[in-house]
């Protein structure tokens, strides 16, 4: 399954998904709201490093190895942000803002590294229960997300097959030539899926 989850038995892996998600949203927002000054950039990065160290990731480097991999994954965001900042606002805000944005994203990444998607899905379903009163059905929302997730795998394979077939025929990678057969096949799949859901009594 598509996931960035990193299996482990650290304490953060065992915290219930719902409260953990709220905690990370609050933390990421907190980092995002730090001021644009030298010290704040350091505080933002320090907080993210500390969070990884405290998360009990067991990578043999106090979480720093995983932290570095996460920073590397957002290297383009860092580069683009830093360049734009240096051009438009000067050195101190550029440093602070780039650190702040990087730290917020990398800190938030810790949530998906330590939490299974299925657990977050369950937490979301529970969290949406109060909205049942206004006509939102949490079970349907969860079903929708699950069905979509499994369809992504099917369509990902379909998309690769179509691109491979076109490459094999020596066609250049044209977006239009790819999109038409892909959409027709995907939407036919939607019809089949609709029939399957109907047959199973999903209303």
């Amino acid at each position, binding site marked *: 399954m*598509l*996931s*960035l*989850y990193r299996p482990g038995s650290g304490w953060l892996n065992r915290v219930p998904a719902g409260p953990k*998600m709220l905690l990370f949203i609050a933390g*990421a927002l907190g980092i*995002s709201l730090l001021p*644009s000054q030298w010290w704040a950039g350091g505080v933002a990065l320090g907080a993210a490093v500390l969070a990884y160290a405290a998360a009990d990731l067991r990578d043999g480097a106090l979480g720093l190895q995983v932290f570095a991999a996460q920073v590397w*994954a957002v290297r383009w*965001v860092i580069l683009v*942000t830093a360049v*734009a900042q240096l051009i*438009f*606002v000067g050195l101190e805000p550029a440093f602070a*803002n780039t650190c702040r*944005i990087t730290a*917020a*994203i990398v*800190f*938030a*990444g810790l*949530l*998906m590294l330590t939490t299974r*998607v299925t657990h977050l899905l369950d937490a*979301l379903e529970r969290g949406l229960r109060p909205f049942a009163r206004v*006509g939102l059905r949490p079970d*349907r929302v969860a079903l*929708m*997300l699950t069905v*979509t*997730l499994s*369809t*992504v795998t099917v*369509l*990902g394979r*379909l*998309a*690769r097959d179509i691109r491979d077939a076109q490459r094999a025929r020596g066609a250049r*990678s*044209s*977006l*239009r030539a790819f*999109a*038409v057969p892909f*959409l*027709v096949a*995907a*939407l*036919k*799949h*939607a*019809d089949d*899926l*609709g*029939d*399957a*859901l*109907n047959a199973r009594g*999903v*209303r």
Partner: protein
Amino acid sequence: MDHSARRQLSATDFARVAVFAAIIAALGLVGSFNIGPVPITAQTLGVMLAGIVLGPWLGALSVTVLLALVAIGVPLLSGGRGGIGVFVGPTAGYLIGWVVGALVIGLIVHAGGRKPTVLRILVGTLVGGLVVIYAFGIPVYSFVARIPLDAAFVGNLVFIPGDLIKVAVATAVSLTLLRAYPRAFGRTWTPAAKDRVTA
């Protein structure tokens, strides 16, 4: 207006919304396409097509479903991005803009319940796919990155050529789809006068 569809989704519409959310995700996973020398990702093309094919409400819903999956940590955005981090990052506004963009595209393309035309698809994707998405993306970028609004506006210019290409592709693809697989649109249109003559 399909308010009924919004309240109670039929299994067919349920499947179309889920599959379209997956289409947008898959378009981000297949990697970039080269238009001349420029590599572009196809994900916003998927957002445009969602509005065109599914219409305003279902289109916006399918984008919302995709973003909900991204929020709970599935790496479905192009480049394998996902998690709540993308919603506190500088490009968060563009993602919110996708939802409203798909809605606006659907409203324009299906205005009056008539069969989509080249003109309405072009106008819809330009307004919903560029103007609306930028209207959310630029201010949020300016707010998160703390750079002046005009600087964010200038930075946004780099997206315009690629997005214009996507408008052209979305239009061409949806016109082909209208002929090849009209069922995809899930609606019926009263034939225009000139079609009745040729039919």
